[in-house]
């Protein structure tokens, strides 16, 4: 698995766009919307190499924070100029409201690409990049508010260990969110999807990234991955409560959510 991602790191984003025809952006947006993070949230994004989820999280929190500040200012009708000046000062240094993202990935190359992207897009604060294994996270217990793993859990060899680690590092009340390819139950869509996956995607892989094998692996690993209900049971096994899943695009992708209660 490591070598697969080493070779695809640079072309990862481009391939994502071409494979999913850009819909993966929508899926990730939906994930963040479902999370609905408030300022002050600490997010751990595992297997989040190139930082897609992290950047979206920061954007979301920033806009929520702006709305909060606007509402606060509306209430402050009768302040003196001094007080208004002070409130602007403190708020400017706090545009994220103390939210933070830790991006953790097992692959150095992916993290490098992510850091470059961050610099390029101008994300400076609230981001940390950590090298780590999802089955053995280098973090203390009860640290994070939200744990996300977008299109990463498929590549973990022992999924149950990864779920247990997720449970460990989450604070009580914390949320586990998993965005992953899943089973399509509708037979018509399923046939079209299979056709697309096995015929088109490896070809795209060869043309764009020069790598047929990795994308063959990708498509096969998707088929091997446990379906929605089974993953839900595994998440419950790890100790999460209120586990639920939401199918996107007929089950091509599913978002699983659980709470550490």
């Amino acid at each position, binding site marked *: 698995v490591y070598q697969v991602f080493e070779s695809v790191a640079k072309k990862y984003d481009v391939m994502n766009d071409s494979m999913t025809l850009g819909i993966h952006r929508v899926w990730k947006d939906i994930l963040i919307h479902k999370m*609905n993070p408030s300022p002050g*949230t600490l997010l751990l994004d595992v297997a989040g190499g190139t930082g897609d989820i992290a950047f979206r999280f920061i954007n979301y929190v920033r806009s929520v924070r702006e709305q909060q500040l606007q509402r606060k200012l509306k209430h402050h009708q009768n302040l003196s100029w001094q007080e208004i000046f002070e409130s602007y000062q403190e708020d400017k240094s706090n545009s994220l409201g103390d939210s933070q993202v830790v991006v953790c990935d097992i692959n150095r190359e992916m993290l490098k690409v992510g850091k470059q992207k961050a610099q390029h897009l101008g994300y400076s604060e609230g981001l940390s990049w950590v090298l780590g294994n999802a089955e053995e996270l280098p973090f203390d217990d009860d640290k994070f508010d939200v744990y996300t793993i977008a299109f990463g859990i498929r590549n973990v060899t022992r999924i149950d260990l990864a779920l247990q680690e997720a449970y460990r590092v989450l*604070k*009580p009340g*914390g*949320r586990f969110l998993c965005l992953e390819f899943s089973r399509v139950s509708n037979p018509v869509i399923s046939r079209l999807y299979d056709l697309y996956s096995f015929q088109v995607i490896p070809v795209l892989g060869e043309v764009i990234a020069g790598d047929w094998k990795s994308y063959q692996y990708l498509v096969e690993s998707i088929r091997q991955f446990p379906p929605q209900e089974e993953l839900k049971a595994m998440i*419950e096994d790890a*100790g999460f409560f209120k586990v639920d899943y939401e199918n996107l695009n007929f089950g091509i992708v599913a978002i699983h*959510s659980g709470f*550490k209660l």
Partner: protein
Amino acid sequence: AAAGALRRAGWRLWRGRAVVRCQHYPPLRALQASAVLRRVSHEHRKEPLTSSSQQQFDSQPDGHQPEQEPQGPRPSYTGQGGQESEDYESEEQLQHRILTAALEFVPEHGWTAEAIAEGAKTLGLSVAAAGMFHSDGSELILHFVSECNTRLSELLEQEQKLVQLGKAEKKPTDEFLRHAVEARLRMLIPYIEKWPQALSVLLLPRNIPSSLSLLTSMIDDIWHYAGDQSTDFNWYTRRAVLTGIYNTTELVMLQDSSPDFEDTWRFLENRVADAMNMSNTASQVQSTGEAVVQGLMGAAVTVSN
């Protein structure tokens, strides 16, 4: 892998049974240290401190303690960490606690997921716990309304007991209705600024079944304690009338700026008086109608003679 599948299948059966028994016996996973739900039993002792401040915040002037239901069903903790016991609260009870805690933050944040997040924080949970609820705050509002209705029922029950014991006089119907509606509307006073937002959320199609059923059960309760024993069409008219009175008074209250909402209570008095007059008028109309008919018959007989 087969063992894992078997274990999962067996565990699912166990959980199925647990659900059937209404979660009296916690599922196997309880052994794996449910972080918050068990911790709640630990905090059973500390609970009274936080919940009493809650009660002070929204207790009624007549000083009767509202029931904090999460504490009731939980038996005392017999502290043997990790053992199977019946001390685990269900997810619903935890959600109730979070929503109750969140009410404190409503005047500041409105009926939103933010208030729920702040409420979760006071319970020692992560702010992400607000993700358990819908992002428009519907559950918070419905929870609040149902809590108010419960408090109203208890209040009326207590007063009924006093009457039965002979310690108080039975109020005439119009005064009783006025008193009940006023008591119920007074519970809104701490949240009155954000209440219009709450009303609009309650009117969302998704919420209408629940909010309507809460409203009708409250009106039902009031009439029950008012001594309504009717089994005919009157039952419907009485409830419709009282629902109308309640809703209009609530709307008046929202834009009332008089001290202690005097204008609202006066409006309420007038509406209840109207309602009483209406029933009188109805019977008067009926008897007048009968009298007129009899008069006409008499005149016809006279003329024919």
